[in-house]
């Protein structure tokens, strides 16, 4: 009431030119508003009284939101992978996959004989704030810490879209995003060793979209520095590597599930180093500059009775790649006996390969598995260097059998036997005894 008068007074003061009739109209309007509000307040009060009079139908239980010990909520989830092995291998001076330019070696490239600690990894992850999450995976080596992954990812964009930035494993293929502790075998597949060394990682950005459909569909694109094999570090502003990938997947009944994917990778290399044996059986150094383009197709199928994987389960995975490299290759020998003479000429290759593996958990804790690797050196053209470098038609193959025992979800012991024919001169029986243990937070694994 007082306010109305005040407002009217203020208005009169503010607009002295207003005619008395205008002011009257304004007053009437304000009065109308006031009565309307008073009526609504009265109605609300009546409803509150009504509600209070009614006995509470069900005493609302006090939420126990804070009674649970939320230990370390602000600390990142930390897990430490402890992995070690005993390997019984032949004494092979220079391990290579015949017919393929050697990929850069990842850590734990599987060549050391006897006892070794390989793949000690520290994994930290957490939500950063309401908008981002982050993860770092550090590989701890002697006198060295390698940053396997260090990325941030958006969590709030919506519409099924997320953006990841930093160093991350590319979303291409099936095995690629898995770190050694999550592998089903003691070593990497020949296909991944030939393609990437261990797995393809970027320093860059990834855009991923998950479709709002019953059938699982995700599509992603990445642009990165492309420093890892098959690319090299280049002194340039632009991106050195691009990938595109897509996955689809779903269930068949309650017992079966599957996922299939297709990916494309294009990387630029500038003087990528490699070592080959030339026609005089001398170590020759090669430098490749050009582009490397690869297609990777992957398929995974998993089975568990009624979808209950605890007792028994089976999984099948296969991946196939085709890679074409175009550019120039320089070949030089550091010994006078070598064949190469420092000639740089065109290099073209078109190669392919695949692996297929099956893993069966036949009783709780026990799994057995078989993997078959096969690569096709395809066509390789060294140009003028054809005179100095051998061209092989040996198809590298490997059979692997493994048996593992997991006392709990956090520990695993594995025995593996492989018959490795990666090189024409090689027919090697390999034995691995391996342990993989994880300390700390529960690592949830992808499909």
């Amino acid at each position, binding site marked *: 009431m007082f306010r109305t008068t005040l407002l009217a007074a203020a208005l009169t003061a503010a607009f002295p030119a207003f005619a008395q009739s205008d002011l009257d109209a304004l007053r009437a309007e304000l009065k109308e508003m006031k009565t309307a509000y008073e009526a609504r307040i009265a109605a609300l009060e009546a409803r509150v009284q009504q509600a209070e009079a009614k006995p509470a*139908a*069900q005493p*609302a*239980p006090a*939420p*126990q*939101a804070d*009674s*649970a*010990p*939320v*230990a370390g909520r602000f600390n990142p989830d930390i897990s430490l992978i402890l992995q070690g092995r005993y390997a019984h291998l032949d004494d092979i001076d220079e391990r290579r996959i015949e017919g393929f330019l050697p990929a850069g070696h990842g850590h734990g490239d599987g060549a050391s004989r006897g006892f070794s600690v390989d793949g000690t990894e520290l994994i930290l992850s957490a*939500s950063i704030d*309401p908008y981002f*999450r982050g993860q770092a995976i550090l590989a701890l080596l002697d006198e060295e810490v390698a940053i396997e992954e260090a990325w941030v990812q958006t*969590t*709030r*964009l*919506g*519409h*099924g*879209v*997320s953006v990841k930035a930093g160093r991350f494993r590319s979303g291409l293929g099936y095995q690629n995003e898995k770190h050694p502790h999550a592998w089903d075998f003691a070593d990497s597949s020949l296909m991944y060793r030939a393609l990437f060394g261990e797995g393809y990682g970027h320093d860059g950005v990834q855009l*991923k*979209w*998950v*479709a*709002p*459909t*019953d*059938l*699982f*569909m*995700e599509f992603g694109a990445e642009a990165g520095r492309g420093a890892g094999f098959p690319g090299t570090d280049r002194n340039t502003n632009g991106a050195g590597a691009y990938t595109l990938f897509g*996955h*689809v*997947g*779903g*269930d068949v009944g*309650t017992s079966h*599930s599957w*996922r299939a994917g297709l990916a494309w990778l294009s990387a630029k290399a500038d003087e990528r180093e490699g070592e080959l044996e030339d026609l005089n059986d001398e170590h020759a150094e090669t430098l490749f500059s050009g582009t490397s383009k690869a297609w990777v197709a992957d398929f995974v199928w*998993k089975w*568990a009775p*009624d*979808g*209950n*994987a*605890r007792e028994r389960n089976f999984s099948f995975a296969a991946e196939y790649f085709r890679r074409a490299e175009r550019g120039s290759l320089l070949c030089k020998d550091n010994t006078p006996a070598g064949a190469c003479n420092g000639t740089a000429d065109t290099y073209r290759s078109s190669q392919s390969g695949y692996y297929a593996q099956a893993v069966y958990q036949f009783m*709780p*804790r026990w799994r057995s598995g078989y993997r078959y690797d096969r690569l096709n050196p395809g066509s390789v053209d060294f140009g003028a260097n054809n005179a100095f470098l051998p061209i092989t038609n040996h198809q590298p193959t490997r059979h692997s059998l493994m048996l593992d025992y997991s*006392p*709990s*979800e*956090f520990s695993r012991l594995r025995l593996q036997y492989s018959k490795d024919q990666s090189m024409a001169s090689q027919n090697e029986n390999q034995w691995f005894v391996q342990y993989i243990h994880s300390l700390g937070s*529960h690592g*949830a*694994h*992808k*499909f």
Partner: protein
Amino acid sequence: MKRLLVCLTLWAPLAAHAALNVFACEPEWAALATEIGGADVRVYAATTAQQDPHRIEARPSLIAQMRRADLVVCSGADLEAGWLPVLLRESNNPAVQPGRPGYFEASRFAPLRDKPASLDRSQGDVHAAGNPHLHADPRNLARVGAALAARMSELDPARAAAHQARWQAFSARWTAAIAGWEARAAPLRNMPVAVQHTSFSYLIAWLGLREVAILEPRPGIDPSVAHLGRLAAQLQADPPRAVLRAAYQSPRPADWLAQRLGVPALTLPYTVGGNARAGDLFALFDDTLDQLLKAAP
């Protein structure tokens, strides 16, 4: 491909106006959400009663369902620690991330039992927050249901009145049913039972059963034959009336011990869908009580 994208873009806004999409980690929460939401919700149960909720694969189909969910209802207390984080991460759905209204953990709304005094993995797969199998006490379902009805009303204000009305109706029936079950369960008081895993702690506490043995030497660790042999010898003098296991657990250890002791091995449904009869929440407890009463003295 382009046509597919166009179809998806056209279809997405339509889907937004549809019923509330509820992603329930376990069948009991799917049943509860259905009781509250009725025809106003579309409920997807991520697991069945035949699946061990600790060990679920983060399958592509689950990611696809979570991508479209408006509300994720899970037990929490680390029960789903092996798979839910992957689904949350891979689904790119901000509405259901922890801390948002679209993320609902049942364990936040009921008092949890068996909180470990110390956290050490040498004690097995212990859950830091306490035992997550809280739905085995029907009073907890009432507590969680009230909170879930409030959450669903918050997320879908247009249908809040309908949610609340359905919840009130269910709650009244549920309270009456609990009174009925408690009256029928009088003979079960102090009845000794052995269990395979701590999945029935809440049921045992509610009915006043006496848990004399757990078959698993540590939570989540399967019993060895030697361990079972020792248990059988220990229990021979004063055997339990029954050995209990959930539908999803392996029958072997429970059957072996029950046979050795000459007592029945009961396969309790554990959750909705655990056997042919346990089709809804009421039938779940009806069947559980009937089975237990058969073993009562």
